[in-house]
């Protein structure tokens, strides 16, 4: 059964990518929606299977590592697979209605969308470092393509900038992989850990880790390597922005986190961990600050991503040389942050897109007084904002709670301040939007209500991110021992 599920999971996206490449936009949409159903069902099935029976290793086509592709199917991975399915299908659904079918180049949306999806699945499930690289590249290239779909010069500039950053990050990562293989003779993280248990740490091996983490940080847009992100996320079509912010940046972070959790203890050092944490904090503050200053709605959301990504990197200091329980809390907290941010940010971008459609302008000022029309999307935007502000009962709150506990438990109280200030700063930019919408002005008497299907999608996502906090214990229990799985080297 699981074999069929795995096969479905891996090959549907690729197959659909090829299939849709051959069609125009309208047909592609129809086919994609069928594919989405298949993919969601498969992801759900796999998630259920793993949550019942536990994780396993899966050699693709019966080939074993190192030459074959070995997949690691554990609770965390399938949770992310499911998350991807949810967010991507929401974006796909939304895009089908949102994107203008008349522009000829828009038909490339569907293949790129499916390549992106397959790349994401490859990253979540990837077991060895090189396959992760391939997955990352697949993601990057299709993401760049999606950004470029905007078609205007600005979109192209943003996408080229994005592409260069992504490629540089990939190469840095690949160089790290090369060094690792050169030193340890294996590509599997578990293998490296196994090797390190037997031997003393060779000199210079920290360099490999540093290179990989730096490359991935660049792809994740950690401050101060974040400057490619806001233009790309801000200028892309709303469903694309949602995909990029919700999932794409998470993929590179996911690899970085796995590397750090396995290799951080032997290869990393305290200063590096604290430095990464510090950069994360700077990202939180700086990103939020800039988000407050943006004039365009989607830029606000994009800078908010920069800030929210900062939280993720608090994982590094909070798991380095601390007690077992703190590590666990930090991991759980970050996992929740990834999920809730993915849901909330996707909801926010989609809602922002709808609002732009409604008001006919992408500026924050244009929202003046729209709340009197009870725009559904504004409501979704607001609910997603609750999660971003990490207020209860959202998943963001649960994440923040766990991170607070981890910071207090590890004695690194300075992250507590960062977390609290970050929450307030995010409130500042979220409330800026609310505020604008409540301003009564006589000028706005026209308001276009987008189709219901466009409006309902961000609402579902926002509600999911809001409700995540209430069920976070269950969600986390499925990812029992996240990132850690004894496996064959």
């Amino acid at each position: 059964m699981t074999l069929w599920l795995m096969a479905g999971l891996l090959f549907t996206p690729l197959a659909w990518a090829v299939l849709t490449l051959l069609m125009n936009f309208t047909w592609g949409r129809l086919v994609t929606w069928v594919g989405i159903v298949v993919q969601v069902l498969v992801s759900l099935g796999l998630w259920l299977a793993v949550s019942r029976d536990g994780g396993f290793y899966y050699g693709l086509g019966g080939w074993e590592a190192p030459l074959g592709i070995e997949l690691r199917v554990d609770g965390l991975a399938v949770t992310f697979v499911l998350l991807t399915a949810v967010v991507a299908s929401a974006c796909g659904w939304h895009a089908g209605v949102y994107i203008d079918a008349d522009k000829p180049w828009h038909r490339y949306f569907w293949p790129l969308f499916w390549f992106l999806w397959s790349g994401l699945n490859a990253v979540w499930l990837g077991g060895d470092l090189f396959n992760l690289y391939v997955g990352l590249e697949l993601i990057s290239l299709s993401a760049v393509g999606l950004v470029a779909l905007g078609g205007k010069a600005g979109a192209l500039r943003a996408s080229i900038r994005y592409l260069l950053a992504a490629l540089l990050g990939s190469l840095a990562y690949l160089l790290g992989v090369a060094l690792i293989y050169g030193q340890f003779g294996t590509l599997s993280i578990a293998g490296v850990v196994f090797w390190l248990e037997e031997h003393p740490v060779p000199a210079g091996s920290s360099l490999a880790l540093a290179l990989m983490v730096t490359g991935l940080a660049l792809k994740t847009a950690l401050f101060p390597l974040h400057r490619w992100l806001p233009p790309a996320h801000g200028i892309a079509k709303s469903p694309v922005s949602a995909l990029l912010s919700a999932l794409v940046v998470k993929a590179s972070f996911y690899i970085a986190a796995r590397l750090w959790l396995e290799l951080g203890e032997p290869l990393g050092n305290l200063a590096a961990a604290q430095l990464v944490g510090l950069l994360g904090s700077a990202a939180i503050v700086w990103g939020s600050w800039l988000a407050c200053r943006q004039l365009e709605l989607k830029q606000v959301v994009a800078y908010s991503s920069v800030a929210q990504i900062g939280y993720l990197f608090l994982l590094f200091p909070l798991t380095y040389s601390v007690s077992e329980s703190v590590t666990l809390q930090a991991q759980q907290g970050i996992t929740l942050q990834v999920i809730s941010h993915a849901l909330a940010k996707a909801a926010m971008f989609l809602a922002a897109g709808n609002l732009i459609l409604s008001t006919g302008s992408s500026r924050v000022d244009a929202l003046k007084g729209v709340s009197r029309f009870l725009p559904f999307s504004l409501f979704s935007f607001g609910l997603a904002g609750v999660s971003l502000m990490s207020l209860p009962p959202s998943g963001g709150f649960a994440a923040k709670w766990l991170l607070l506990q981890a910071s207090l438990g590890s004695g690194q109280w300075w992250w507590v301040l960062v977390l609290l200030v970050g929450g307030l700063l995010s409130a500042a930019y979220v409330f800026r939007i609310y505020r604008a919408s409540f301003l009564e002005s006589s000028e706005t008497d026209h308001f276009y209500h987008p189709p219901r299907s466009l409006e309902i999608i961000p609402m579902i996502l926002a509600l999911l991110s809001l409700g995540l906090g209430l069920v976070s214990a269950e969600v986390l229990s499925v990812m029992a021992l996240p990132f850690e799985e004894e496996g064959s080297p």
Partner: protein
Amino acid sequence: MTLNTWIPVLALMTSLIASLVIFALPEKGYRLRTAVNLGAALLKLGLVVVMVWGVFRGVGYGVSFTMVPGVTFVLKADAFSMMFAGLSAVLWLLTTIYAVGYLEDSPNRSRFFGFFSLCVASTMGIALAGNLFTFFLFYEMLTLSTYPLVVHRGTEKALKAGRTYVIYTLTGGAVLLLAIAWLHGVVGDLPFREGGHFTGSDPDIHRSLTLIFILLVAGLGVKAAIFPLHGWLPQAMVAPAPVSALLHAVAVVKAGAFGIVRVVHDVYGVDASSALGLLEPLAWLAAFTIIYASVRALWQVDLKRRLAFSTVSQVSYIILGVSIFGPVAAVGGLVHLLHQGIMKITLFFCAGNYAETLGIHRIDEMDGAGRRMPGTSVAFTIGAFGMIGAPPLAGFITKWTMGSGALAVNMDWVVVVLVASSLLNAAYFLPVLYRLWFRKPAAHWPHERQWGRLETSAWLFWPPLLTAVMTVMVGVLASLPFSPLSWAELIVLREYSP
């Protein structure tokens, strides 16, 4: 899962679902919206009455599940939560009636009532929360759902007030979160328990406990508007009258005060708080707030602002009451939770009536309004005298009980504070009453509306009268069973002899 598990959840859900339904209703669906509002309010009141009776007989209502690893979400009905729940259920009903009349013909009513119900759901959640974590959850929800109401008018002034409000409350929330998380880190997940948890606790953690207590009070003190964290409250008075009435007089500030009482009584335990030396400074702070805000109120010319400062002052009575280490004073503090709510809502209703019917906002415009609107003015008079502490009204019962309690534990200075506050209250309320009844009315009112037979719309007319009658009744019938005083005595009995 028995029915008893579900009753608290249902009580919470009534307003939550009402809120969603109202959001979904079209703006023009006036009758249906009113029906949903009132139906939900009545249903909730019924559920609360059932729970009050049950709690009195010792039935346990509650539900809990693990939300985040290590933390449980607990809804639980105990005597104290029923006090707050009862207050919000009763006043929600009245305020809904009032708001229907107040917002007649004004825009954005769906939005208003939706968020309004959401607020009440949060208040209910705060009342029924069974541990600090759950409390915090609803506490923040309250912040969020009140913001749209504060800025409802959409004017620059309202938005500015909303901004101030959000800055204050979210910062307070952050501090509170820190405190709760820290406490959780030190001792784990603590359910509210009568008598508290820290009696005879390990001396090693006393320093942390003290710091956490300060943070908790600071966080909760924002909503409870303790000096110097009260700045948002007078500004938030730009909101429509029902909002000022229910939320700022009752729900929001009470949420803060309620939280402080919870912390002192049911987390730390009154013995432990006293032993840690935390109560005395809190009492002084509350006393200072009482006096300070009353003095500030003297200089306000806007009626609602004056009432707002009065709220700041009165809420600190609750805190003063619980921070005196003695059962009788605690009764006085707790009972004020209800009394202040009833009295202040009366005053705000009346202020709203004056504004809506005659266009009066400033105190110097109120000359002779008593002749034009006798019913409202009688209610206002009763409310004001209640605030002053004139017997036999609600405020007197509070002051008398608290004063007796303070004397019983030899904190004589509290009596001085009470008397000074009463004098100040008289100084800022009596001139208003004088203008109402004994000045000649102006030639014409700033903005008069005719409503037909009654002095104002019937929706606006009856709620303040009812609350005024309640103000009298809870005072006169203070010794009946199930009166606020008796209920507060029950709470304190359970707290002091757990």
